[in-house]
């Protein structure tokens, strides 16, 4: 009896598992069909910061299954940033008020094939954080809205001055109706970490397809070793810096003694 019941139980579990597999396959297929509406990739998935690094350009290229607009959003790793406002105190300008933002992308750039307001509405822009006004930065302090807006715009302005946030929209160029490409520039001071490159296909004001490609910005070689050394073993790094300097000073003294 118990053996039969066990057998029936096993049969049931097999059926459930089979059903799940079928369901998953269906979802997967649907996802594939959905994703095929837009396919995009980068010319490189790794930006290597070497000692001679002066900034670099990555090409994003892709194809759509028909007419539609494309928006590319590149977002760098999110870290906390403190924005400080200088005030004149006793005649000199020193930092007074500060606001901390918890979720600030180290890099942010948007590229489209035509101006955003011509093909997409505010709700979609806000939902997908497309464009600087719709970027969520996660302010920590509770502030009056007008004050917060002031600090927020100052943060964006400073990032733009550093070349890390796009000042204008980048240009996505269509070659024919389906093929598109855009160049994304990363300056020398680009922060390291995992970047998200999002390609969105927009039709009739709605996002119909999206693809996210990871991009890694990483220090490699000598500069990476120095950075890791300084971060992970700061005390030994300090000792090494001192010993190196003493040796260099000694050497210089010895060389120029004869000159």
């Amino acid at each position: 009896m118990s053996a039969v019941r066990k057998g029936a139980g096993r049969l049931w579990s097999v059926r459930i598992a089979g059903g799940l597999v079928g369901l998953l396959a269906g979802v997967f297929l649907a996802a594939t069909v959905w994703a095929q509406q837009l396919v995009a990739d980068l010319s490189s998935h790794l930006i290597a910061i070497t000692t001679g690094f002066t900034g670099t350009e990555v090409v994003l290229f892709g194809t759509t299954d028909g007419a539609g607009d494309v928006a590319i959003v590149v977002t760098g790793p999110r870290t906390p940033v403190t924005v400080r406002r200088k005030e004149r105190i006793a005649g000199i300008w020193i930092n007074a008020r500060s606001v901390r933002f918890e979720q600030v992308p180290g890099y942010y750039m948007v590229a489209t094939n035509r101006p955003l307001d011509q093909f997409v509405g505010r709700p979609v822009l806000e939902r997908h954080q497309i464009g600087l006004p719709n970027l969520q930065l996660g302010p920590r302090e509770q502030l009056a809205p007008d004050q917060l807006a002031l600090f927020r715009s100052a943060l964006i302005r400073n990032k733009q001055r550093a070349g890390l946030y796009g000042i204008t929209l980048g240009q996505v160029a269509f070659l024919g109706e389906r093929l598109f490409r855009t160049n994304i520039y990363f300056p020398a001071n680009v922060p390291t970490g995992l970047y998200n490159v999002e390609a969105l296909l927009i039709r009739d004001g709605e996002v119909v397809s999206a693809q996210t490609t990871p991009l890694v910005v990483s220090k490699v070689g000598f500069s990476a070793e120095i950075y890791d050394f300084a971060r992970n073993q700061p005390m030994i790094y300090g000792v090494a810096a001192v010993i190196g300097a003493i040796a260099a000073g000694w050497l210089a003294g010895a060389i120029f003694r004869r000159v």
Partner: protein
Amino acid sequence: MQVYLPIAEMSVNALLVLGMGGLVGFLSGMFGVGGGFLMTPLLIFIGVPPAIAVGTQANQLVAASVSGVLAHWRRGNVDVKLGVVMLLGGMVGTVVGVWIFSILQRIGQIDAAITLSYVFFLGTIGTMMMVEASRALIRRRAPTAKRGKLHRHIWLHGLPLKMRFHRSKLYISALLPAGIGAIGGMLVAIMGIGGGFMLVPAMIYLLNMPTGLVAGTSLFQIIFTTAMATLLQAATNQTVDVMLALLLLIGGVVGAQFGTKAGGRLRGEQARLLLASLVVAVALKLAFDLVMEPNDVFTISTRMS
């Protein structure tokens, strides 16, 4: 040629930094000062974050003072005993200075603090030097002027813990050189300078040390305070960029050799007057920046506190 600085996380023109090191090295060789007070503002000017400029400068000064002290050592111009006493004070001053530095960095006032201390110290010392050098120049033209007393006894010489320093022929309280050393140590930590421009007059006028021993002895103790500052800055604030230090070092060492030769052709008072004008000019420029309304009153910092 661009070089990426791993700690400052920026790319700089290597030739520019080498040139800056060379120029400052030339001036320091010419006038016999460390030149840190010129280098830190220059680094800040080309966009290096002030905290990193200070930490790196401390590292570079270790090398500069080692090569400087070698020359003095060979001529026997170092009073080791006095140097060690100054050093003990210097260690305490450096620890306190780095601690103050990290607090200021946390509350976001480090930039203003660095600039303010520059304006204060450079302004004071520069003006004093300028007055002294002009007087010396005038005295030379009117040789009838009265000669000052060789040794003035002030309350500082009545402090306890008297010690005998044979090399300098001094019998003074150990607290005096230790105190001077402590102030020097704090300057290294907060301003990224060796403090020679402050130590040298203090040793001459407060300790009444023989002038010939002053430069060597102050350099001797600067090696240790800057080494200590480098160590502490690296460990607590992670602001030492060895790549930047290396570039500054190469330029500085070469520049100093030419500077020393050029300095030999200058007369003492003229050199002092020139140096004083330079110091005052830097102080005025920094003071101007503090008082003028900045282009953007907002700044951002991504450093974790």
